[in-house]
């Protein structure tokens, strides 16, 4: 059949496509339905956050970070204020630290829920998406109560948080935890044992340990390959060393492992929130900070474990109230690079399964 050559076809998947999770473009060369070549094109959502930050005071940058990974804005807020605090050697009041942990881990739960829902939607199952968004809605409403916004929180400040939890808020969070655990069982019933789902994701999009390290992957993608690397444990920041939780590691590095880690991490996050609720005490939520925040001259980098991997902020300061250069290490952007390598040789249907499992947020990829 050598003489029966078929022709290749170049297809744009995105920027306006239902499952690219935003404006992301993938130029694939197809032979039949098999992918011969893939070229990811990003930048449609580039807003120049790093450039904008050079003209902004540190507190003014915080709302811009909300818009990077808009599914886990609390963690973005924290990455920035934490780096500034680290650079200035600032003390943060205990209550603020606990509040931060609570909102961050809740945000991680919300973000992972969105992953689960949208991933299953990509695979053609509609219901998990709507179920997952029910619980996310509860979390988002909790955030709305504490900071007045559902998506762009702008909650953290250098030296603490902006608002204390309103009366009864902590109890609501406490009530949410058993509810969420109950729902997790439902998700597992609905998704985790489904033969069709397992067939679609098992052994698909395998990442090797060598590749994961070479591509500097982080977060769930890295841990799915069997590398135990969680910044909350390995490079503890904030008060994470006070909490008892497990780092979930899988071994195959395929899409199923990534799904499982997301699910398990929700449970671990709930454990952290529970412990934080037990330990939190009354007190101020904003420490003593200078009126004008000036980072001492020099350069500073802190990475935190975001929902999608290592979320780092690199500040080069000349001692003024604005950064000389601000670089954001955006996990989605770094993780996405491996896509090309994973896609070649796969077929069209796997494209969606693989892209979905990498778990990107385009706001973060494009900066």
């Amino acid at each position, binding site marked *: 059949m050598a003489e029966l050559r078929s022709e290749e*076809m170049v*297809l744009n998947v995105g920027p306006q*496509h*239902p*499952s690219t999770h935003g404006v992301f473009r993938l130029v694939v060369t*197809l032979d039949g*339905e098999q992918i011969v070549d893939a070229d990811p094109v990003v930048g449609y959502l580039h807003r120049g956050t790093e450039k904008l930050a050079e003209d902004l005071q540190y507190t003014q940058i915080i709302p811009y970070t909300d818009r990077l990974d808009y599914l886990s804005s609390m963690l973005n807020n924290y990455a920035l204020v934490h780096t500034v605090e680290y650079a200035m050697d600032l003390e943060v009041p205990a209550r603020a630290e606990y509040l931060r942990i609570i909102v961050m881990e809740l945000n991680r739960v919300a973000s992972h829920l969105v992953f689960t829902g949208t991933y*299953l*939607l*990509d*695979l*053609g*199952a*509609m*219901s998990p998406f*709507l*179920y997952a968004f*029910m619980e996310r809605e509860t979390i988002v409403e909790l955030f709305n109560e504490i900071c007045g916004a559902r998506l762009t929180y702008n909650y953290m400040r250098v030296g603490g948080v902006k608002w204390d939890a309103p009366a009864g808020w902590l109890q609501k969070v406490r009530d949410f935890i058993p509810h969420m655990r109950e729902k997790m069982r439902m998700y597992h019933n*609905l998704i985790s044992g*489904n033969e*069709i*789902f397992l*067939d*679609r994701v098992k052994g698909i999009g395998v990442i090797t340990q060598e590749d994961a390290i070479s591509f500097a992957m982080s977060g769930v993608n890295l841990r799915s390959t069997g590398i135990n690397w969680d910044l909350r444990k390995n490079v503890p920041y904030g008060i994470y060393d006070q909490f008892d939780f497990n780092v979930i590691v899988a071994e195959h590095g395929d899409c199923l492992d990534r799904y499982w880690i997301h699910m398990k991490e929700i449970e671990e996050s709930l454990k952290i929130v529970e412990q934080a609720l037990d330990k939190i005490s009354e007190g101020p939520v904003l420490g003593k900070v200078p009126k004008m925040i000036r980072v001492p001259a020099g350069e500073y980098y802190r990475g935190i474990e975001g929902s999608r991997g290592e979320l780092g902020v690199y500040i080069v300061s000349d001692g003024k109230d604005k950064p000389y250069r601000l670089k954001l290490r955006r996990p989605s952007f770094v993780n996405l690079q491996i896509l090309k390598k994973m896609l070649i040789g796969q*077929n*069209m*249907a*796997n*494209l*969606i*399964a693989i892209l979905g499992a990498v778990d990107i947020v385009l706001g973060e990829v494009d900066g």
Partner: protein
Amino acid sequence: MFHWESTPLTGLSFLGMVIGAVVVLLIALAVVTYAIYFERKFIGWMQLRIGPNRVGPFGLFQSFADILKLLIKEDVIPDKADRIMFLLAPVIAFVPSFMVLAVIPFSSTHVFTAGLNVGVLYYLAISAITILGVVLGGWASNNKYSLIGGMRSAAQMISYEIPLGLSIVGVVLLSGSLNMNVIVAHQAKMWFIIPQIIGFVVFIIAGLAELNRTPFDLPEAESELVAGYHTEYSGFRFAFFMLTEYVYAFALAALATTLFLGGWSGPFLPSWLWFVIKTAAVIFFLFWVRATMPRMRGDQLMSFAWKVLIPVALFNLLLTGGLYLL
């Protein structure tokens, strides 16, 4: 019992036929309208939503609003499309979907039914024409997503055509006729779902695939192919593809009822009501699957048809033949 073949062809009986056919068309349209409404409502409830609730009481007129909207939408024909084929494809897809309803025995009086003695074969033969419309639509759009969608549906529908055909042979064997009226009559004592349970399972799975419904909705996998073969279609031309799909859902449910669930037969209630109840149950099952399952992948889909369903259907056939002898 009333049969068209035992009625002499007069002007009056011809008028009766016309009325019968028009009534079936209206029933089909009404079923489709409300099947879509119920699908949205049921799936809404299953997904903790309320579904359509704005147009009319409980959103009952939602489908009419949708039809009206589609009717007044611009009919866009892309420049690069093959114009004639593009215009014809939805019609080619739709006509057979309506034609197959001619042989379904809706009730004990066969006013709305042609008592063809090749009824089952007629259904299979005519329904296969729809594949042509789908492939043509995908090809004529000159759109890559449509092309892939069209190709996928061709491969899928022809592959599942075979287990669908094989699963029915068992029923034909038991009743000794291809006439649907006779098949229903044969189920007076026992529905064929009991001796033909394997056949029924194969039939429902293959039927789901023929309907391009979840988990076999690859041809229009929206997360991969945007909308598959009807990506370029808009307005009422798109509506005809949708209509085709839902008329087939109705036809398939009716066929399942007739072949396996005893058709219109049942105690106490009028025969047409029994038919409605059974068909509605099958349609509901089709919707239910959609709310639960993710989508299969192309290669899995194909190997499932050829490596699982066809051997199982063949085995079922041998089993039925063997047991019938005993």
